[in-house]
């Protein structure tokens, strides 16, 4: 299995870091705030 070959370890670590960073950034900046906004809107409409 190539992921167990030490030659590819650096590559894997780099890609893991990049992917995680992009994921966390996108979630915290764009995706989750949309959900929070939707939830707050739902609560507000239900309060009316």
């Amino acid at each position, binding site marked *: 299995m190539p992921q167990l070959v030490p030659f590819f370890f650096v590559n894997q670590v780099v890609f893991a870091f990049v992917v995680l960073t992009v994921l966390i950034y996108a979630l915290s900046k764009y995706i989750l705030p949309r959900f*929070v906004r939707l939830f707050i809107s739902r609560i507000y409409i239900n309060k009316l």
Partner: protein
Amino acid sequence: MAARSAALKIDWVKVTSSLGLRGQTAASLQAFKKRNDDARRKVQLLSEQPQTIDFAHYRKVLKNQAIVDEIENQFKTFKPATYDVSRQLKAIEAFEAQAVQSAEETKGKVEAELRSLEKTLENIETARPFDELTVDEVASAQPEIDEKTASMVSKGRWMPAGYKERFGDMSVV
């Protein structure tokens, strides 16, 4: 003369009904109408009475000529007292101007309020049901939503308080 003809032209019932007067205003208007009617009746009654006196007849009938002479003299020299009502008229005019001004102000206020109420009514009538609204529309109607979202995101909190209790928890874990 002009004032009297103007008073005759007033349709009192119409004034009360068309202006929608109530309570004290209507009562004072009624009192004013009564006063006007009474004065008019009095003038009518007095003007019907004879205004000439046959002094020759009294001279023939009465023995005391001096008193007839005196009364005739008094009658001829009598002049009705005149009153200067210009001050009252001026005061009434000032009051009228003020009343008209305040009425105009009230009219403006009422019109503005009416416009805003019509706008609100139009908003209510053209409003769509909640299930056809988008989040953006709700947020633009209530800017508080965006503020709360920003504050929650900056604190790293992703679930508003009370949401799960109200809408249920969909998460598997």
